């Protein structure tokens, strides 16, 4: 009961408090000189966010970077030993390869499908229904999604009744098809996992791209149509350029998501049979083997891997805005 009270306080109070904070800031700005105003104001608007980010994300990150130079129980420094271990591990090449394959396949397909669906559903009356169906996989908790897909990919020997949906479909379409153990064949398992990831995240891309699409002024498109432009032209010359920044936001988020992809791999194969990824190795080092030094080194590698992504965003956001 008392928790409910506190929740009500939070839901009503926090907006009030934050709003009050902003009004207080602005009131203070009015009283002070204009020079102080311009310089101080942004920092005050950003303060609540930055306090939280500093405590919950920045401080642990710095601490992690420091831990990566210490040993397993963080008792003595080992300089670069953890990094050396990671990069000389024979399995590491496979792990890095997997992350790369995920990066390319997952990001491309998810963004393109998300864009396609956002644009197509915009034109039909049953838009909400389709969007709900595509969004559904995101709403399912990952544990349940793991259960579904394990059944989808299940294997029964040829000749036995197929329980797995994928094998069953292929067996009925192609009579000479031999059922495959999709998750356990080295040539297929990464692809099988990536498909699960795509299935889940297209909804995400679609929702955001759809929000971006709705923001495009209809008068622009109508004018183009009246002028006789074909749909394809309109899409590539008007819609796409106007959605560029939204697409970059979606792509960036997906790239970062895929760099730290963990749940799909952990639940379905735990990285066995050449499906391992960086985040899974980090989890194992940290929680299963209790080696905080190496786990931290893996985390730092992830952090370094997004530098190219950040560069891309410098170019984009460095220009835009007021």
């Amino acid at each position, binding site marked *: 009961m008392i928790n409910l009270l506190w929740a009500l306080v939070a839901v009503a109070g926090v907006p009030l408090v934050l709003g009050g904070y902003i009004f207080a800031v602005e009131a203070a700005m009015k009283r002070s000189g204009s020079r102080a105003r311009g310089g101080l104001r942004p920092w005050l608007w950003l303060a609540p966010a930055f306090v939280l980010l500093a405590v919950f994300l920045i401080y642990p990150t710095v601490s992690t970077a420091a831990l990566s130079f210490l040993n397993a129980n963080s008792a003595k420094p080992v300089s670069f030993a953890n990094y050396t271990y990671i990069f000389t591990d024979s399995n590491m090449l496979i792990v890095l390869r997997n992350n790369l394959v995920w990066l390319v396949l997952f990001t491309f397909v998810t963004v393109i499908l998300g864009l396609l669906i956002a644009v197509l559903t915009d034109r039909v009356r049953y838009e909400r229904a389709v969007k709900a169906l595509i969004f559904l996989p995101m709403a399912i908790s990952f544990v349940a999604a793991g259960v579904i897909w394990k059944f989808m990919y299940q294997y029964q020997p040829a000749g036995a009744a197929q329980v797995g949906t994928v094998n069953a479909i292929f067996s009925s379409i192609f009579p000479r098809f031999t059922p495959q153990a999709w998750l356990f064949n080295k040539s297929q398992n990464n692809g099988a996992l990536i498909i699960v990831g795509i299935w889940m995240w297209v909804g995400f891309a679609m929702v955001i791209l759809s929000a971006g699409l709705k923001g495009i002024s209809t008068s622009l498109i109508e004018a183009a149509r009246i002028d006789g432009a074909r749909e394809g032209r309109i899409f590539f010359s008007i819609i796409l350029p106007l959605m560029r920044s939204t697409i970059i936001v979606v792509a960036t988020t997906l790239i970062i998501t895929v760099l730290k992809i963990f749940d799909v791999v952990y639940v379905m194969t735990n990285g066995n049979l050449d499906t391992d990824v960086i985040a899974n190795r980090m989890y194992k080092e940290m929680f299963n*083997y*209790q080696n905080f030094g190496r786990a931290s080194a893996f985390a730092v590698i992830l952090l370094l891997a997004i530098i190219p992504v950040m560069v891309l965003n410098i170019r984009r956001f460095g220009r835009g805005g007021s």
Partner: protein
Amino acid sequence: MRRLVLILFVLLSTGALLFATGSGESTQAGGKVGGSVSVLGVWGGQELDIFNSMVAPFQDRTGVKVEFEGTRDLDAVLTTRVAAGNPPDLAALPGPGKMAEFARQGKMVDLSGVLDMAAMKKAYAQGWLDLGSVDGKLVGIFTKASLKGLIWYNPKNLKAAGVQIPTTWDQLMSTSQAIAAKGTTPWAVGVESGAASGWTGTDWLENIFLRMYGPAKYKDWYDGKLAWTSPEVKTVWQTWGKIVADPKMVYGGSQYELSTNFGTAFTPVFQTPPAAYFHFQATFIQSFIQKQYPDLKPVDDFNFFGFPAINQQYAKAVEIAGDLFGMFKKTPQSTAFITYVTTAEAQDFWVKPANGISPNRAVPLSDYPDPLSKNAAQILTSADIAVFDASDMMPSKMNAAFWSAIMSYLANPDQLDSILSDLDKVRADAYSGS
């Protein structure tokens, strides 16, 4: 208006700061201890129900509230809480290996100062107390056990096929080959198990190793003193490979073995006509079989025989596994509870629904609900050589590599040598205790 908002701001922030949680460490009147104890474990579903019923009499008697948190992410939660300084009072761990890791970090309480050791020595065979000790200190006490290395079969099908129960490995192999010659795969094997896939295979290898080389070498093996590339270990894998790497011997070949969850892998044994005859698994598979086939009766429709002997010297050896409790914080409440879980009364709660074998000598055989579990309990308590599940005794990293190696071997049995040398690389790293 603005001023009102500002006042609200101040009031609410003050209120929020005053919000704090306490943990009720009150003591009650009437001679009861009162208060609460926090326990962290992996149990869920039916196990959680059993645990709750086990806890009920204790709560009534002592007034201590048992706050149990169950999670399959035990490693993540326990590691985090121990490192951050708020460990649970007690933890129910699935094996001594994990316990040893925390003990070596100095986080566990020495139970000899908590439990009545005289009573413990009476209730438990020394072997159980040794298994729960790290560097001479008792840190874990077992509450339930299971027997591994049993071979399950359908008696009616076996009889119809004219097959005798083998007692030696050679007999097992020739029986299997005879069945295979008639066109049916004799074995049903499945090693998938989510994040722990491969552990079924490790049980196989442990049983073969134990019966080939005996308990002393077995201990060397899990202590990391015996190389994976040694001829002994290699022979064990190759012996196992004669069954699991031969598509005529296992239902569905390697694809089925790799992709089938251990909890459903036995189904070919109970099909009509049977698609397999033998299934290797521990005692707990009984509840899975009964759930899948509620009409089947123990002993008549499904039964087990012990793992056949390889070296006659070690014929009576058994491999066991078990759950144990460890203590992170000594309080009157946690002391009372851990004492309770060592008693026959508490362990009976696991025994009666056939969810485990009790390591406490005071639990009579008659408490076991059916002939199968009685048989298993008898084998366990009368075995003269009893060893613990080796992979549970290895450091986590070695254990995980062992599981993965099983998967790799089943996928590519011809790569055994490189698999073994990779395991040795992990061994060099995992036992170094850096």
